[in-house]
């Protein structure tokens, strides 16, 4: 089972962004790293200068590097940016919108979690177009994941396994709206919230997280307890989505549990310590409301289905 690190979804200061990846390259036991600004094209120029150095450092460390495309492409500038990305050489492009797929014209690529692949027929179509890796949409239940993975055995199927879950994308920026700013003059206020802005209900229940034009869950996806089950279902990679926390510790925890050096309970304790105060969720995988967390029974990630999948 591979571990992959998804792109940073938040607006981090450029130097911090760069240093985050330098540390990932040097210390994190991940096999694949997806980089690039995928949420808001206005943020792209800030990290653009650092991308070559980050890609080089990650590749030298033996990581496979993916370059992610924008999730929502509407402006002419964004289309041009997507087209340029599609012509990148030496790295695999991770497609987050079909706009990019046309520009790739059959060349090998990866598909990110923002492309709607809900069934084996769609997965097969993308495989025929050159998809080598597919990170499935986070809302898919396990039965669908297993059916898709079985249908495209040559494609590495990946699942969103750690981090606040991306739930929606909009043309409108909610950070700007909240700060009473127009989108075109947003002053990049989203940079004030490196882990997103918490949105509560009027009864102060934790609910969602705002990240500019993107809306994420308040809970943190955690599929550590399902790792063994996912392996049996031909899932080949688990995606860890960067939060404002020690992602090296998160990656080590997943690797240790996957390799049998720690059990799920121990792993969960380490994840809770690395990213405190944010509840876990895995409801989507069990076809339940996505915010719920079904606790896996004690045991290791290699155990039989009956142990790991049980409530």
């Amino acid at each position, binding site marked *: 089972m591979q571990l992959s690190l998804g792109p940073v979804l938040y607006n981090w200061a450029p130097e911090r962004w760069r240093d985050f990846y330098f540390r990932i390259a040097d210390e994190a036991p991940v096999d694949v790293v997806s980089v690039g600004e995928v949420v808001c094209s206005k943020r792209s120029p800030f990290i653009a200068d650092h991308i070559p150095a980050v890609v080089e450092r990650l590749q030298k460390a033996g990581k496979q590097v993916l370059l992610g495309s924008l999730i929502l492409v509407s402006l002419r500038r964004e289309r041009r940016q997507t087209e340029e990305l599609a012509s990148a050489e030496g790295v695999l492009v991770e497609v987050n919108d079909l706009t990019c797929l046309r520009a790739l014209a059959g060349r090998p690529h990866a598909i990110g979690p923002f492309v709607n692949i809900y069934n084996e027929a769609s997965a097969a179509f993308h495989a025929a177009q050159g998809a080598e890796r597919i990170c499935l949409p986070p809302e898919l239940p396990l039965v669908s994941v297993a059916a898709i993975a079985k249908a495209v055995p040559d494609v590495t199927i990946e699942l969103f396994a750690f981090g606040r879950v991306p739930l929606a*994308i909009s043309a409108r920026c909610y950070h700007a709206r909240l700060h009473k700013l127009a989108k075109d003059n947003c002053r990049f206020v989203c940079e004030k919230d490196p882990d997103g802005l918490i949105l509560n209900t009027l009864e102060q229940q934790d609910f969602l997280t705002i990240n500019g034009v993107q809306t994420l869950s308040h809970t943190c996806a955690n599929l550590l307890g399902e790792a063994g089950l996912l392996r049996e279902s031909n899932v080949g990679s688990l995606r860890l989505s960067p939060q404002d926390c020690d992602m090296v510790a998160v990656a080590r925890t997943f690797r240790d549990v996957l390799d049998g050096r720690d059990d799920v309970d121990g792993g969960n304790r380490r994840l809770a310590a690395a990213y405190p105060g944010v509840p876990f969720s895995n409801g989507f995988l069990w076809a339940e409301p*996505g915010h719920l967390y079904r606790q896996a029974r004690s045991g290791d990630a290699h155990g039989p289905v009956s142990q790991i999948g049980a409530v």
Partner: protein
Amino acid sequence: MMELICPAGTPAALKSAIDAGADAIYCGFNDETNARNFPGLNFSRDELRKAIALAHGRGAKILVAINTFPRAAAVDIWHRAVDDAVSAGADALILADIGLMDYTARRHPNQRLHVSVQAAAANPDAIAFYAENFGARRVVLPRVLSVPEIAEITRESACETEVFVFGGLCVMAEGRCSLSSYATGKSPNMQGVCSPPSHVTYEQTAEGTKSSLGGFTINRFGTSEPAGYPTLCKGRFSTAQGAGYIFEDPVSLDATTLLRGLRDAGVTALKIEGRQRGRAYVESVVRHFRHALAALESGSETDIAGLKPFTEGQASTLGAYRKTWR
């Protein structure tokens, strides 16, 4: 003249839409294959055949929406829906899923195919992808675009464009939103429902009414305030930056005043949302837009206030068509 595309959730609404002057009516089967999968709504196979006969006799077209994303290991259900709609004589199928478009293009190469708004094709490159791969003839544009953007896309588009002019308004990119399933386990993409009534509760308190979805409070209303339906993205929430309608005010789209701009943009068809709405809504809204289009042709004035009773919270917006927030 631009085509007027009207919703019908029942055979009765369909007849009202035809009577009121619809050029085409869109509808779906009564199951999870369409994105308005509500109890008591939509058409049986037999009802669809009769609807098509009725519409064709009156010179109107029937577009069949099969626009959810087929469930893995159960795609047969969606394939059957496509086959049955084609054999019933549907004038076009409105599809969102790539696998289903692929199936339709191979199995029924002569069937006219429209790209559903749920496919979120928001620019000419994405549209060209659908036209080139599946022969799509029309794309329903997402409600995230301004009129100038629509004009630019239509100019470059590989196929006809259709835009929403009235009704419920998604504030998130359509087909790319899991907010409903996060709160309830039911999503537009998979089950064809958003913020489903089965998960809604209203609670009376001393201060007024509290509405919830899947256990999350979506809004609170004072005793003098009418309690609106708790559609998730149109709720009132709280953040460190302040509380209120964080995503969007609970308003409906009404683009009556933009018809000229849409026509000049080269848009082929105008769409009215609301397959879940009753006959009175369909009848009034369709008639209003029929008159507005006639007025546009003859250069006379249009009554722009006529639809107020049919908008959410009696308030309407031009949505993204005028990007005041840009």
